[in-house]
């Protein structure tokens, strides 16, 4: 199941060339780009694991591309996303965030029905990748 989160997620995956152009745009706007990864793409899992520090004061996309490549090699079967953080006073927030790496097979989610008082049903979803405990699924 293809995860659609962040910008461009309904488009085909961006090529490296296209990613580089996006990053260059971010840097032109003086946004700091950072890399995050996870294997639990639950929509409410907002804060993924940081891959290295956010990259401040970069001028050229080459630095981000190098870092992204090492992230892909380290976590080939994880989701990896690039975030662009705008530190301008009054904004201090993400401006852009998009996925740059996906597992070869995306496991998707399971629907969980919880029956509660009065036969009411609560629904929730869980990424099937998280079936095993965090410590056991490290690749």
């Amino acid at each position, binding site marked *: 199941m293809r995860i659609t989160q962040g910008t461009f997620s309904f488009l085909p995956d961006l090529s490296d060339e296209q990613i580089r152009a996006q990053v260059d745009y971010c840097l032109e706007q003086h946004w700091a780009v950072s890399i995050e990864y996870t294997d639990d793409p639950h929509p409410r899992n907002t804060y993924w694991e940081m891959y*290295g520090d956010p*990259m401040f*004061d*970069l*001028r*050229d996309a080459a*630095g*981000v591309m*190098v870092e992204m490549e090492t992230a892909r090699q380290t976590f080939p079967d994880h989701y990896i996303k690039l975030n662009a953080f705008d530190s301008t006073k009054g904004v201090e927030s993400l401006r852009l965030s998009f996925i740059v790496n996906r597992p070869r097979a995306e496991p998707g989610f399971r629907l969980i029905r919880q029956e509660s008082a009065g036969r009411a049903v609560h629904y929730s979803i869980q990424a099937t990748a998280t079936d095993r405990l965090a410590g056991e699924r490290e690749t």
Partner: protein
Amino acid sequence: MKVTAPAPGLDPGTSPSPDSTATSEFDLGLARDESQVDELLATLDSDLIGLVPVKTRIREIAALLLVEKLRTQAGLSAGPPSLHMSFTGNPGTGKTTIAQRMAEILHRLGYVRKGHLVAVTRDDLVGQFIGHTAPKTKEVLKRAMGGVLFIDEAYYLYRPENERDYGQEAIEILLQVMENQRDDLVVILAGYKDRMDRFFASNPGMSSRVAHHIDFPDYTADELEAIALLMLEQMQYRLSPTARPVMVEYIERRRARPNFANARSIRNALDRARLRQANRLLARSDPRLTRDDLMTIEAEDLRASRVFESADGAAEGAT
């Protein structure tokens, strides 16, 4: 590239094809105008006094890059030339200034994409505990990508007396990036000549990856005077006619003293002269000043310098 086949029946000797490729026009003049590099080199000439060997080398590099651009257009390729450099010379000979200009020139010629200069020293590259150095060095390298990384006093990276020094780790990461990402950044190492020579001798890997060794000569007295005048002009000051010979004498004396740092010493001297000028104007009985008063540095502003007294004092003490 398209090669037209000779028309049937034509003598191969008169076939137009080898001719037409040989005379295909690659306009060096146009490439030159487009990059506006001449303008940049001209300002380099007028803004910076002396430094003839340095300027010559910069011209050569500019020429190489221009020709390389046309060669690429012509489908000829030798790969991007290696442009890592080493600037050696005494303090105040213009290494940082030239590095800044170099970044701009390389940007105009399309060799680096952004053309900014990141100036660092050992502290910015080498960490303080195990595992600290690599991320630190990499962060600096990432910041410098697309531009020029200027490492001042690069020989401090290598401390042979301590084999566990983390500097070696920084050098190795640097070498790797210098080799593999030549089109992403240019590294300029700078420092005193003798120490840099020793640094390169003990780091053959570094030495072989630095293609250009540029030596910055000390300025002559005349050049220093020209520099002083140029600096004053840029700061919108001028020397009074009596102050001019004092300036010459000052330079003469300052050069003979230890810790002389070429143009930097001159700049400091001028800053101090400005201080004294301001003080003199404030102490004047008539508080009304002309524009001329505000601009002029008098002989006494220079005369008050320590260089004049202690040189006399030293002479007395010596005899």
